[in-house]
């Protein structure tokens, strides 16, 4: 950080102490440490994970942002990069991993599927957006987002962290966590598999109308 970024405006430092003393706030130091060492959790769900790997490799090099250490354990991770289609089968595991992460923790929904369900938004086995279960900080559109789009999203996350304050951030509040992570359950689908014979019968009826069958 440069001296200007570090110094809180409003405090006058005498000229003879300019190069010796820096006055800053705890928030700035805290946020600087936080935003410069975001460790993502190492897991990918679908094709977006390939772009995530590409962004992590030497060509785009997330180490420039202090994000090079991908942790396979949620205990050591700061950010959950939900990269790919979230199936209903996978959602309990993802929410559980999120609950196991220590605070401060951030969630980035990468790609169309994680943000809003994408092409599978009405699918019987896909969750239409991870934001139904986790508090998402940054949404990155794209199918899949290119590594540069992903890096842009992560820069956005850093900007968000810069604006946070220890006083207001949700994990230092008294009482229970303000964001309740719901226990996932498999909701009703568009098609109930138990009614498949009924649906097939109806489809057959529509394909061959009874009037034609009578003739």
């Amino acid at each position, binding site marked *: 950080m440069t001296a200007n970024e570090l110094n809180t405006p409003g405090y006058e430092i005498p000229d003879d102490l300019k190069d010796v003393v820096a006055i800053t706030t705890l928030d700035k130091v805290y946020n600087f440490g936080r935003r410069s060492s975001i460790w993502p959790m190492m897991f990918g769900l679908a094709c977006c994970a390939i772009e995530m790997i590409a962004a992590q490799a030497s060509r*785009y090099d997330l180490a420039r942002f202090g994000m090079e250490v991908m942790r396979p354990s949620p205990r050591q991770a700061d950010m959950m990069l939900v990269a790919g289609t979230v199936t209903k089968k996978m959602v309990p595991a993802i929410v559980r991993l999120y609950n196991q992460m220590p605070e401060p923790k951030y969630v980035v929904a990468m790609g169309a599927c994680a943000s809003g369900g994408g092409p599978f*938004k009405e699918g019987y086995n896909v969750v239409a957006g991870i934001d139904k279960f986790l508090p998402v900080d940054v949404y990155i559109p*794209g199918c899949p987002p290119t590594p540069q*789009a992903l890096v842009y999203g992560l820069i956005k996350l850093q900007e968000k962290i810069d604006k946070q304050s220890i006083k207001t951030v949700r994990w230092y509040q008294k009482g229970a966590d303000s964001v309740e992570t719901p226990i996932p359950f498999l909701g009703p689908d568009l098609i109930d598999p138990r009614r498949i014979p009924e649906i097939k019968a109806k489809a057959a009826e529509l394909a061959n109308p009874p009037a034609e069958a009578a003739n």
Partner: protein
Amino acid sequence: MYGQGLLKGLSVTLKRYINTYVDDFKWWGKRYFNAEGIAHRSSKDANGIFTVQYPEEKLPTPEEFRYVPFLVYDEGANGEKNIRCTSCGICAKACPPQCIWIVRSSDPVTGRPVPQPAEFYIDADICMNCGFCAEYCPFDAIKMDHDYELASYGRNVFDKERLMKPASYYAQIRPLNNAREETARAEKAAAKAAKAAVTN
């Protein structure tokens, strides 16, 4: 002898490492943060490490690169925006994930439909960048964008204002496609004029 492959691999890494500095000397201060440097590092003549220093420099996007679509408008003489879209709804029908939502407009006096969309939404968090909308549009009104810096803190549902971009922007990002479409449109207009002349 064992380990030859290992040494060979390590020598490749070492070569890359040294070549980075060789290239740095050759390009002395011009290797990064300019269009020429990144074009060289993207080419087959690149030596050494070729990291794209993303926020400061960006990879040149190929013409057919496609991201979330946008609506093309023609700039009128007085700066008005003549949107090409006629709200026919073909794009919304062709869209595989069905992320396009169009509200048609009608004349407030007569109540008859006006070929202009009253509202036009694209849910960018559903869009899968397939380009079918641009492919199917008969009026060249919806095109695929090159702008990938779209990440935000909320759901990305783009409205008409957000989606509208001038035809000059389209000509700038896709010059070849634009030239091809311009000639096709001119030919069509000429054929129409010739036909009108014959019937009259």
